[in-house]
Every structure is written in structure tokens, then in C-alpha cells.
């Protein structure tokens, strides 16, 4: 518990980003596993990038709690910082890929011609579209929180 007490606000923000990223993976998995337009519509590398981002965020927080001396201190700080930069970048890639993959489908569901829109907007398709949008929101939130976390140190300053 002593370790947690040393978490700075930045560490909590970073962990929040990780949690949000995990949530987005879950939402994504449920979305493509459920009936509807995007069923089985996997997005290339999305899960892999998301999991990597979560791992990077968790590793950054962990590294932030150790305090080596000498030149090792700078090295640890660089690795920790690099992970704080990499994580939101990975999440951004996930978001961009998801938007690219889903834009046409969302357009089809919400903006089809009047004569076919009733056939398109089935409950399942609308639920699928909503799930995808939720997925995008989660990813965007994780990305933004991750960016904010990159401004922060991850360990309370010693007094």
C-alpha cells in the first residue's frame, strides 16, 4: 500500500487512461461479437495496439515508482517518458483505424436513402452502430487522458 500512497495525480490520470483503454477493448469485442452491421467486422490491429497501450501506461506508472541513482535514474526516466508518449499515440492509431473502418458503415446506417433506410435501421444495426460510437468515445477519452498524463510526473515528490 505504501507504493500506492506514493502515486502522484499524474499516476492516477495515467491509470485512468489505461482503464479507459481497457474498457474500449471490451466495448470493441462486444460490438463485433454482437448481432448487427459490424458483427465480425474486426479492425486490423486494434486489439493489439490497445493492449500495448495499456501495457505501456501500466509500465510507465510502475517505472515512475522506482528511484534508482546515478545515470540509471535518467535512463529509467527516459523509458518511462517514452512509454507515456507512445501510449496515446497507439490509442490515436486505434481511433483513426476504427473511424476509417467504420465511417462507411455508419454512413450507410444513418444516412441511407429514404427508400431503404427502414430496411437498414434495424434494432440490431442501430445497436451495432451505437456500440461502435461508444467504442470511439472510449478510445478518444483514453487518448486524451493519456495525453494529459504525459504532462505529469508519476510519483509524489519527496518532501
Amino acid at each position, binding site marked *: 500500500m505504501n507504493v500506492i500512497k506514493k502515486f502522484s495525480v499524474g499516476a492516477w490520470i495515467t491509470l485512468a487512461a489505461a482503464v479507459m483503454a481497457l474498457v474500449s477493448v471490451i466495448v470493441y469485442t462486444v460490438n463485433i461479437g454482437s448481432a448487427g452491421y459490424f458483427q465480425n467486422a474486426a479492425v486490423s490491429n486494434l486489439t493489439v495496439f490497445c493492449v500495448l497501450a495499456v501495457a505501456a501506461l501500466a509500465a510507465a506508472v510502475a517505472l515512475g515508482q522506482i528511484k534508482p541513482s546515478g545515470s540509471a535514474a*535518467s535512463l529509467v526516466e527516459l523509458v518511462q517518458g517514452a512509454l507515456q508518449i507512445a501510449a496515446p499515440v497507439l490509442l490515436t492509431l486505434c481511433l483513426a483505424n476504427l473511424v476509417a473502418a467504420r465511417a462507411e458503415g455508419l454512413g450507410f446506417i444513418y444516412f441511407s436513402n429514404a427508400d431503404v433506410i427502414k430496411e437498414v435501421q434495424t434494432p440490431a444495426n442501430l445497436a451495432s452502430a451505437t456500440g461502435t460510437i461508444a467504442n470511439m468515445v472510449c478510445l478518444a477519452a483514453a487518448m486524451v487522458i493519456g495525453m494529459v498524463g504525459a504532462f505529469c510526473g508519476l510519483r509524489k515528490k519527496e518532501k
Partner: protein
Amino acid sequence: MRAKSFAPVMRGIAAIMACVLVLTMVGAGVADTFRTRIDDALRTQSYVTNTDPDSARFKSDYATIDDMMAAAKALAIKEGEEGTVIMKNDNGALPLADGGSVALFGLAAYAPYPYTAGDLKAGNEDAVDLLQALTDAGIKVNETVRDFYLEKVLNKHTEEVPNRWTGELETQVAYDNIYVAAPGDMAEYQIVEVPPEKFGEMGAPDDWKSSIDKANTTGICVFARGAGEGNTYAPGSALDFEGNATGKDPLALSDDELAVIDAAKETCSKVVVLINSGNTMVLKDIAKGGAHEVDGIAYIGVINDYQCTGIVKVLTGQVNATGALPDTYVADNASIPAVMNFGGGYYADYEIVGRKDDPRYPGVEIGNETAGSFGGSDTYNGGHFIVEAEGIYVGYKYFETRYYDSVMNPGSKASSGKGATQDSAWNYGKEVLYTFGHGLSYLDYTQTLKSVDVDKTPDGNVTAVVELKNNSSQDGYFLAQLYVQQPYTDYDKQNNVEKSAVMFLNSAKAQVKAGGSVDVTITVPSKYLASYDYTNAKTYILDAGDYLFTAAPGAHAAVNNFLAHQGKTAADGMDAEADGAVVTWNVGTLDTDTFSVENGTKVTNVAETADLNYWTGTNTVTYLSRHDWEGTYPINYNTDVEIKLADSPKKDEWIAELRGETYTIQNNSPATEGGDKGVRFDTTNIQYEQLENVADSFWDTLVSSITIDEAVGAVIHGGSRSDVLTNVENPIVIQNEGVSGFTATHEETGYRFNVHSQTLLASSFNPELAYEWGRVEGNSGLWLQRYHLWGTGLTQRRTPYNGRNYEYISEDPMLSNRMGCGILQGCADMGILNGPKHMGFNDQEHNRGGVSAYMNEQKFRETDLRCFQGGLEDADGMAVMIAFNRIGATNASHHVGMLQKILRDEWAYTGLISTDMMNNKYYFNAESMVMAGITQVADFGGDDNHITLGEGGVDATWAYISPKTVANDSALVEQARQNLKYQLYTFANSAIMNVSTERVDTWWDVALRNAKYISGALCAVTAAAWVILTVIPDKKKEV
């Protein structure tokens, strides 16, 4: 404040900038994908249409019509130069001596085939015939013989004859005596060559013989054979000059022609015979050892307006002879295994196909007898069939493989008497006079294969480098030919995969300085090395083993190279020694994967029903196989066995197919009616993305607007031009005939551009020349403002007897494939739709409107279809015309396997698919053609077609079709719309919409690009600052 405390800030900014960079990079790609929609939303414009004629997408290569005409003429002369084949040249007969004299014998010497203008010949005023070309070249032509032929024998005049199609009287050239230009439908063929014994009574001067300076004169005898649509030669049908039956092959030189040759030999010191025909002739009597042997023989094909100038340049040696034979010349056509099954005959019980109760035609008694090419009676016309039991062994592939096996695999019984016509045992040297690829060069040269690189990937190429070495003291032009031998393995024998011992791949020509050498690179897609295994793997395979490549002047020299490489010599039975110069490429294990997927489509059997054995349920047909030449040599399946439909375990299915019931209209799935979707066929809607991608959603939206009536009506009727579709507002595209080029006359000049000779282009063996012709043909379309023609023929010449052989290229699929690729690409580059005829085994004109051609799937894929594959898959061919006949029991225009599975899916072809002129509504079934993917049926329909133009608001041809009867078959209606989608897409990509579109940057393109650069720079700077601030020593500790 310490500088180090800024490190987290820098890190945070670096993270944001990195994210922005990623967003802009990925976002730019996404935005590009949805460019049109973003433009719509933001009211921006990514493409501008340039209607300036100078900026047209397709512009003529020629600034003036005079330049255009000069280019067409130059190309035609070049065809003569490159296509003339010196087959035999002894005693220095050729080239003709500079300033020498000739005496011209034979009707065709003064009126080469074809002598009248029309589809085949342009007939321009500045046309040059053989006599004129010889005179222009400074050759003295014996005037006595000339005047006798011109004035007493031919007596050229004009006649009024009715036009074949319109019936209007037209003025045509005619002669008192002329060879028969149309041999008829397996009718008797009179060879109208005036024998010398008649010269006197026809008014020849008594001294005509003595008028010839024998010592200094070469006799040139020219003999022609006619051809044409609906014509098929019948073996043994020849009549002589008097009209008496001779029992001889009409393609063999007649006794009257041989008498003319004898007269020439008597009066001239040397005699050269010119073969003026698109059908391979039988020249045994005048070849080496023949009873009427001559000094020289040359092939000049079917000529047009200007080719004679080029031909004479070869005859006089102004240019080196580089033409090669596109077909094998044999001593007797009966030795050709395909001839064993030619012409066809009835099933024993063909009548059972006929019926009185076809629900589509109530009250009509429909028979099953054969009908003419253009119908005329109520019949399914499915009574006749042939079995193409020779498989892949067409032309040289049979003769050369059998020769190879006679040396290498005597156990195959290659030397047995089966198929022998010249001796009791089969002997290549006696059966074959001149092989495929044969052609003598005046200048001594060698061709040596230096290297071969095979890229064994689905889209890879074989790249061969051939050294052409000019051993003469003159600069010259030379031909290099590339051949391959695929391994013939135990796997092949077990699974009925046949391999020719030699296969032509491609060829090229080059100029070489005297004594010098030039390396020529020849490429061909690697996929053509694969063979189709229809019994086991059911896909294309590459056998394990050595693939032998060689460069050689003809198929026979290539085979001898392979034999020599494999350690054989004349002592083993080879008929000539060879250097065995071969490059080997090895495949370690049987490869059933590499070529099993094409353009994302799994390649597998699609024509099992083409095999007669499928229907009979037994091994009724034995296909010719090199593992046992004697036991598998084809029998005649029309006379030697009895085929009864009623005996088939699939009798009902078979009969239904012969009745054209490939598809039946459904009544359980309502189709969506079309309507205005707010899109049109115009430059506003059709931008770069739509031109590039037939899968762009625009096209589906566009064709969804077509009404049910128009969608089905526009597909199942038409032929002379495309329909205007109400909600599409597409342009009208007029179709044009012209295997020799556009037959339309240029209004200002009166010039006709159909100056091409398909036969001489074929014998040029030069794919680059084929491209040049295609480009000239395309250019002429731009000048004529005609954009669509049926402008070449690519069907394989299965036998010498087909009356359409003059429109086709060769007996060899790969020569046809490479030449077709060149012609169609040349036209496509000018935006002109050039549709080759007649895909799907138009192997005879006799009963073409219904004859069933049965075959196995290896033949199906590796012979006729391969002829078309180069132009329609490898090049950007935009149209194709389908054959009249059946493939198996299925009308070729109903054949989903050929048209949808192979053409559309495997070949990813996006162009037009037209029927030939639909002639019989009981044979051509409208719904089956729609479902097979036909984009427009060719018939004599009106301009804009509907399925309401018949009595009572039904279709005028197929009365069971109306908007009401098809409205509940959504699959049919949607397929009709899909077919029209391909038509419209093709029109959009042609010169019909001859405007260019240019991409311009919108403000959001600029913003995205700038954001990318700025974020990238800031990311780099802040990341560097973060690293520096992180690693600098902590000053507090230094104190």
C-alpha cells in the same frame, strides 16, 4: 525555476504532437477515401473537368487527317514487310534479282484475295496491288502473260449486286474468271484456276511461251482461297476449273493450279509460289520432293490496300524476311487429329429435345433440327455435336509432341500407324511440311537464349534474354522466338494432364548491325507455364521437374534443342542435329497453390458439363494422350459410336440444357423498381474514383435507377448501338464492324481506315506491331468519332477448314494471346472499345448457330480461352463478342462458368460482353443470357429497347417476358442492372466521355498537409527538448 522542471511539459507537448501527426497521416488517407463525400459536405472541389480539346483524356497521335492516313498506310505496308513468310527458298529464287523480270501466273496474281472492298478490304483509291507493287519496285513484269490474264482471263468490270444485309444494289468489282471468294457451308468448292491447256482457246497469243526470257525470268504463281462468315470448307469437296468433282481437298493445290505451275516451270528459270489465303493450304506437291516442286514458296496471307508494297519489299530483298508461319502446314489435312471430329452430326435421338408444350412458347411445335446461321425455323438447333477429343493437341502441339515422343518415348507408340497418312507408320518428316514458327531469313543469323528469370508468383513474369547475332554483312531485322517444354510427369499420366513437348511463349524482333549482336528481352506472364488439372487438383498446377526454355526459329527446331539437351542425336531418330542450347528452371515439388487463385478468385472447374462423359456417365470419349498415341488417337464420335440422349443418367438435365433452360425465371422475389436517384452519367458524378473503381458505390446507385423494363430490355436487345436509359442519361454508343479496322468512311476525305491484314499481322510474330496496329486503329476511331468496334478475331484456328480463320491469328493460343494483348491494349490506350470475336470455340462456321462442342476442361481453358486471355486479362480490353455455338450442351452466351466465373471473376474483366447476332429465340434464351452476364444481346432490335414492344405489352421476341413476369425475379433484374453497370463503366473509361479530370488540392488538403508538417516538426523539437532536459545533470547536486 530550474530548466529541468520543463521536461514533463515538453514530454506532454511531444505526446500531443505525435498524436496529431498520427491523426493527420492516417486521416489524410481516410479523407482521400471519402473525398467525394467530404467535398459534398464542405462544398469543396477535388477534381476539375477539363473540356479543352487539347486536354482531352484521349488525344490522337496525329495532328492532321493526312498524318493519320499516312500512319495507317505505313502500318499496312509494315504488315506486308513483317508478315511475309519465306517457306521455301532454293536455287537463289528469292530475293528477286535487282532489275530482274518476272512472269505472273494465276488469277490471284492480278486480283489478290480479297479483290472487293468491304469488311476485309478498304478499297482506297491509292491501294496498291501486287502487279503495281512489283512495277513500283522496278521489277519487269512480262507483258504478254500480264495482258493475257488481265484482258482475256480476268476481264475486270463492275456489277450491281445486292447488299447482303440491306438488299440495296451496290457496285462491285467482278471478273470473267476469278477464284471463288466464298467457299459456302461445307459445299463443293470450285477451284477456278484456268489451266494452261485452255490458254489458247481463251485468246492467249501463240507465242506467249517464247515471249518469256526463260533464263532471266522468275515465274511467280499466286493462288488464293476464299473465306468468309458462314463459310466452312468441306474435306474432299474440290471441283476443278470445269466444275468436275476431283475428290481432292479444296485446300490442296488443284491439278489445274499444278498445271499452271508446270507451265511456269517450263517457261521460267525459277518458280516461286505465293500463298494468298487465310486458310492453311496443302502444299505437298510443290514442297521439297513433290512432283511439282518449285524453287520458292512464300505466304502472303489475306492482303489489303497496301500490304503488297511490303510483300514486294520482302520478295526483292529490300527488307529481310522475318515472318513466320502461325500454323502448321501438313502433307494431308486428314493427319490432323482435330479433323477426326469436324463438321459434326446428329445425336441418334436428337428429336426428343423438340417439344410442343414448352411453356415459354405455347402452341409452338419446336424441333431440334439444325438451322442456318441466322435461324429461320422453330428449332432449338441442338441436334448437332462434335467432340474435340484432340484436347490441347492442336496444330504443332500434336505433331511436335508426337515427334518428340517418337524419339524420347517410343513406348508411347508415337510411331504407330494411327493418324499416319503418308506411310504405314507415322513419320513426322512425311506428315509435316512446314511447322509453326517456320520462316526463312535471307540474312544468316542465330538466336541464343542467354538467360531466363521466372517470377513464380500469380502476377509474375518469365523474362528471357535472347541474343540475336547477325552473321551476315548487311544490317538487318530479325525474329527471336521463345519456347518452353514443361515436364510431363507420372502425376500427369495418372490425372490426365496433357503437356505439349513444346509450347510457344512469345517473340520479339530487333534490328541488328552487320556482324553485330543485340540482346532482346522477351517477357510473358508466368501463369502460362501452368497446366490445368481438371481431374485431381481441379486447378492450375506447376509440375515438379525441369522446365526447359530455348530460342529457336520454329517449333521443330525448339523440340530438337530439347532433345539434344536431353542427350539425343540423329542416331536416336532425330531428323536434325541441334545444339541443345537450353536454359533450365526447376520446380522442386508439385505446386498446386501458386496459380490456384487469380485476382482473388479460387480457380477451379467451371465447365465439367462441357465433357460428353459428364452426360453419358461413362468414358465414352477417350481424349488424345501422349502416354499412348495409338490407343487414344481420336475416333469420330459422330460416326464411330452412337450417342443417345435417352441413355444418359442425366437425360432430363441434358435435354433441358439443349432447350436453353440454363436459367428459369423465378416468381418469388420482388425486384426493386428503378427511379431517379439523383445521379447521372456525367462528369459531375463520374470523377477519378468512379473511373478507377467499378465497385464504387456510385455505379450501383446509378444502375439502381434503371427501370425493370429498361434494365432487362437494354440487355436482351440491341446490337447496333447502346440504349439511352431514362434515369441515367448515358450517351449513345454506335457499334462498328471491322476485323480490318473501322469500315466507316471519313467524311471529308472519303478515306477508309480498314487497311489492316489480320493474317499478315499474325505471321509477323511481332506483338509490338500488334500494339502499333491497335493504336492506329484506335486513332482512326477518334478521327471517325466512332468508339466501339468488333475489330479483331482471336478464336483459335482449330483446323484449316474454318471460313473465319482469316479473321483469327493462329493455331497457337499463346501467339493469339500475345497479339491480342497488343491489339487490344493499343486500342484501349486511345479509349476505343475493340471487341475480339468469337470467344468460346467458334471452331467451325458450319452449324455455328447451335452445334455443341464437347471437350474436357483442360482444353476449355488452355486453347480458345487462352487466346482471349491476353487481351482481356493482361491488357485493358474493353469488349468481347461470344461465339454462336454451344460449349457442351450450353449456349456459349449462357455459359456462367466461362462468362461469370472466368471472365469476370478470375480475369477481373470489367468490359462489355456481347452475343454474336442473335438468330434464334429458341436457342438464345433471354433470361439465361442475362444471368450469364451478357451486357447486350446483338439482334436487330430498335434503338431504345423495352420488354413491352410486343403485342399485349410483352417482349417482342420472347413473349413470355414482360415487366410483369420478371418483376418477381429480383436476381434476374439485379443481374441485368449489374450487366449494364459494366457497360456504363466501360463507356465512362473510353473516349466516349473524352474529357480529362485533374486532381486539385482543396483547403482541407492543404490544412491536413500543413498540420502534418507542423505537428511533425513540433513533435521532433519537443521530444528532443524533453530528452535533453531529462538527461542534463541536476545542478543542485553538483553544488
